[in-house]
C-alpha cells in the first residue's frame, strides 16, 4: 500500500538534497543519499584513480571517498575550509562525495526537470540527469552512477 502511494509521489514530485561545489548548486534524488556527514578523517589508498580521495570507516563499513572536483576539472579544494561528505550506496558499496556545503531537501515537481542544456561542458553533462531552474540560479541534478566507474577515463 505504502509502496503504491510512494510510487505516485515519485511520479508527481521529486525530492532533491541540494549541495554546492565551487559555488555550483547541485542536487541528488533524496533516495540516492544515505547520510550526510561532517568532514571525516580519511585514509589515503595507494595506487588508485586520482579521483578517489581515500576511504573512511562509517560505523564499521568502508566508504570510498570521491573528490568530484577532479572529475569536473575544478581547482582542488582548500583543505583548511571544512567540507561535507554525502554518502550514497551503489551496488551494495558505500561511496561518499566531497562537497563544500549542503543545503535543504528541495521538493520540486517532476515536470519541471529539463534536459541538460547543450552548452553545458561535457564533463558536467556526463553526470547530469537534468536541470531545474530556480529563481536565481540553475540547479544541476546529479546522476551519481557514472561517478562510481573509475579509471576508465581518468587519465
Amino acid at each position, binding site marked *: 500500500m*505504502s509502496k503504491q502511494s*510512494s510510487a505516485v509521489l515519485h511520479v508527481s514530485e521529486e525530492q532533491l*538534497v541540494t549541495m554546492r561545489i565551487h559555488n555550483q548548486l547541485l542536487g541528488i534524488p533524496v*533516495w540516492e543519499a544515505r547520510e550526510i556527514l*561532517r568532514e571525516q578523517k580519511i585514509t589515503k589508498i595507494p595506487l588508485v584513480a586520482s579521483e578517489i580521495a581515500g576511504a573512511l570507516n562509517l560505523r564499521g563499513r568502508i566508504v570510498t571517498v570521491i573528490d568530484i572536483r577532479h572529475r569536473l576539472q575544478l581547482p582542488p579544494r582548500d583543505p583548511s575550509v571544512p567540507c561535507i561528505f554525502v554518502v550514497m550506496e551503489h551496488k551494495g558499496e558505500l561511496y561518499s562525495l566531497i562537497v563544500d556545503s549542503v543545503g*535543504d*531537501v528541495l521538493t520540486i515537481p517532476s515536470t519541471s526537470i529539463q534536459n541538460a542544456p547543450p552548452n553545458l561542458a561535457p564533463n558536467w553533462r556526463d553526470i547530469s540527469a537534468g536541470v531545474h531552474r530556480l529563481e536565481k540560479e540553475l540547479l544541476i541534478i546529479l546522476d551519481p552512477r557514472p561517478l562510481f566507474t573509475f579509471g576508465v577515463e581518468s587519465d
Partner: protein
Amino acid sequence: MLSHLRIIHKLAISTLAFMGCIFALIYFYADSIGSNIEFAEKELQGNEYQSALMPLLYDISKLQTQHLQSTDTKELIGKIELHFARLQSTQSKLGESLQFTEQGLASRSRSQLKLESILAKWKSLQKTTEEKYSDQADAAYKSLTADIRGMVAHAGDTSNLILDPDLDSYYLMDVTLIALPQTIDRLGQITSSISSKTILEGDQKTEAAVQARMLKEADFDRIKGDFDTSFKEDPNFNGLSPSLKANLDTPIKNFNAAYGQLIDQMNALAKSGSTDDITKATATISTAQESANKMYEVTVKELDVLLQKRIETYSGQKHKVLAACGGGLLLSILFFIVVVRDITKPLKNIQSTMSILTGGNIKCVIPHTDRKDEVGDMASSLAIFQKSLIESEELKSQQEADKNKAEQEKKRQLAKFADDFESSVKGVVSQVASSAMQMQAGAEGVTQIAADTKHRSTAIVNISTEAAQISSQVAAAAEELTASIKEISAQTQKSSQVAEEASSKAESAKQAIELLSEKSSRVSEIIEVITGIAGQINLLALNATIESARAGDAGKGFAVVASEVKNLATQVSKATGEITQQINEMQGATKTSVDSVMEILGIIGQVSGSTSAVAAAVEEQSAVTNEIAQNISRTATGTQEISHNMVSVQDGAQQTGDTANEVLETAKNLSIQSNTLKQKVDEFLATIRSA
C-alpha cells in the same frame, strides 16, 4: 466432441458400441443357425418331393412287370394316376422352391423333366399297356423311369439333400435318393429282360450273372453299408434317434432276405438258364421290389425324423444363443451400472473434495486414497496437491511472520534512531542550556565588577576632591610655612599616602576590567561551541529529512519535525551571531575602560612625584617658598584632571554595566530558547516513537 460428454455417457457409448458389435456377431451366428435350419427345412422339402416320386417309380416298375406278364393293369394304372395326382399337388406346393420350373430345370440341362412332358409320356405309355408288350413299350418304360429318377436326382440336388451335412441322415439320403431308385430301376430291367423268356442262353446267362453281381455289389452291399454307417453315426449327430433302428429293423430284415434269395436265384439262373429258375427269380423280384418299397417308405419317414430332430437341435441352439445373449445383455447392463457407480461416485467425491479444497478448507480429509485404480491415483495426487497447498500456506504464514518481524525490526531501528537522536540532541540541548547558564553567571559577574568599578571610581573622585581641598589648605598653610614646617611635612606625607592609595585602587579597577575581558572571551568560546552544535543539529536535521524521505509516507510526520528542528538550529545560529556582536561591543568598551584606568595610574604616578617634590621643597623651605604656590596650583590642576578622568572611568564602568546587562538578557533569552528546543525535541521523539 468427447470432452463435452460426461464419463457416464462415454462409458455408455463405449459399452453400447461394444454390445452393438456383440449383437452383430450374435445376429450373424443366429443367422447362420437359421440358415442351417433353412437348409434342413429345404432337405425336408426334397424328402417330401422324392417321397412322392418313389411310389411312381415302384408302381411303374410293377406295371411293366404286369404288362410283361399280360395281367390286368387297370387297378395299378389307377394307383399310378393317384401317385401322379399327389406328385402334381406336391409340385404345386414345392415345385417353385425346388426349382422344378422351366428355368431351374434348363439350368441343369433337365428340360425334359417338366411335369407336363412326363405326364404326356405317362399318357402314351398308358396307351401301350392296352396292347401287347413291345420293344417300343419297353423303351417308353425305360424313358419314363429314367425321367422319374432324374426328377429324384433334381429334387436331391435342389433341396440340398445331396449335401446333407450329418452322416446318419446322409446315408439314409443315399439310400432313398440313389440306391433304392437305382435298385428298383435295376429290378425293372431284370424283369423286362428275363420274364418274357422261357430259358436263357449264352449272352443272356452272362447278363444274368452280371445283373446278380450288380444287385449284390451296387445295390445290396451299398444299402447295407449305408444303413450300417447310418446306425453307427446316428448317436454322433443330434443324438440317438430311438425310432430309427427300431422302425427300420423289420424292413431291412425283409429286404435282406428277399435280396439274398434273389441274388442266389439269379446266380443259379446264370448257371442253368432254366425256365424254373426264371419263374422263381421273377417271383422273388416282386418280393424284393415290395421289400425295397416298404423300406423306402420307412426310410423316408426316418429321414424326416432325423431332419426334424436336426431342426429342433438348431432351434434349441438358436434359443440358447438368444437366451445367453439376453442374459449377457442383462449382466453387462448390471456390470455397467456397477462400474459407472464405482467410477462416477468416487469421482464426484473427489470433485467435491476439490471444491472444498479450493473453498479454502485445505485440511479436509481426501477420500479413496486407498483405492488401487486411477481414481486412487487421482486421490493420491490430490493428497500430494493438498500437502503442497498446506506447505505453501505454512510458507505464506512464515513469510507473513518474517514480514512482521522485519517491520518490527524497522520500528525498533527507528526507535533506536530516536533514542540515539535523543541522547545526542538532548546532550547538546542541555549543553546549550548549561552554557547559557554559565554565560548568565559570567554576565552577572561582569555587572557586579562594573558596579564595583563605579563604586571605586566614585571613591577616587571623592579622594581627588579631598586632595584639592588639602592643596588649598597647603596654599593657605604656605603662608604660615615658617610657622609650621612639621605640619607641612605631615601634610605632604599624607598626600603621598593618598596617591599610593589611589594607585592601588586604580590597579584593582584595572584588574577587574581585565577579568571582565577574560570572561567575555570565555563567552565567545562558549558561543563558538554553540555555533558548532547548531551546525551539527542542522546536519542531523538534514539526515533526518533524508531518512524520512526514504521512509516514504511513513516518514512524512518525521520530515515536518525534522524541518522544525532545522529551523531551531538556524535560530540558534542567528542568536549566537547576535551574542557575538554584543560581546565584541562589550570587549571594545572594556578596552576603553582599561585605557582610561592606565591613564589614571600614570597621573597618580605623577601625583606621587609631585608629592615627593613638595617634600623636597619643604626641606628647602626658605629657598623655594615662591615655588610652593606654583606647585600647589599645579597639584590642584592635576587633582582636577584626576577628578575629570575619574568621571570618564565612571562612564566606562556604567557602559560596561549596561553591556553586561544586555548580555545577561540575551543569555536569559538563549536559556528560554534552549528550553523550547528541548520541548520540540521531546515532541519530535514522541512523534517518532508513536510512528
